[in-house]
């Protein structure tokens, strides 16, 4: 599967992708997202449910994102979402160096964000519970119990 060959062809606009030239007859192809796609900033990405404006295809074509709540938890959620999205993009575009460098930067930001979050709210994983004075992994609230007003979102 030579994805590089496909990517070299004429760049299309951001919401379109490339198809292989001279493809075998009667085989369906999905247009391939190109290198260097436009990307939303982290909070907008989380709000829209995708990092890429080109892939923002809401059901009834309404494109205004809902406004997001702020907060330390939200920061981390946005960072980790961008990281996930970039990871999925890199799975099909492993030659995209710029995207990989962005992925590395976000990974670093996410590490720092996790440490800040844990300092404020407690361990994120059972293993990281080791970094605290006592075993507080079992403490309430659990994520499905976060309250709406004032509590963690």
């Amino acid at each position, binding site marked *: 599967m030579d994805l590089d060959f496909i990517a070299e062809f004429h760049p299309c606009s951001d919401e379109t992708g490339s198809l292989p030239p001279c493809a075998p007859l009667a085989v369906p192809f999905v247009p391939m997202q190109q290198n260097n796609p436009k990307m939303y900033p982290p909070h907008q990405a989380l709000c829209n449910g995708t990092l890429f404006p080109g892939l923002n295809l809401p059901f009834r074509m309404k494109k205004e994102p809902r406004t*997001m709540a702020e907060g330390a938890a939200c920061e981390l959620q946005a960072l980790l979402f961008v990281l996930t999205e970039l990871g999925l993009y890199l799975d099909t575009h492993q030659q995209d160096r710029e995207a990989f460098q962005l992925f590395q930067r976000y990974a670093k930001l996410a590490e720092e964000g996790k440490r800040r979050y844990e300092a404020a709210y407690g361990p994120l*994983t059972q293993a990281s519970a080791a970094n605290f004075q006592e075993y507080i992994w079992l403490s309430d609230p659990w994520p499905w119990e976060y309250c709406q007003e004032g509590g963690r979102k």
Partner: protein
Amino acid sequence: MFIYEKKLQYPVKIKNCNPKLAAVIISQYGGPDGELGASLRYLSQRYAMPFPELKGLLTDIGTGALV
């Protein structure tokens, strides 16, 4: 192998409880053709995938859908 993170992926703020909507959402997740079933199919079928990029892709999509 999976690690559980004690946080939500997306902030949730429920102003009004809506049990009917909850029933629809849970049926989309767990019901027939639900996300949960799809995730487990991705995670099971990657073992038969010959291309490394696609083993990775199936793994990552399956993981993301489980979240």
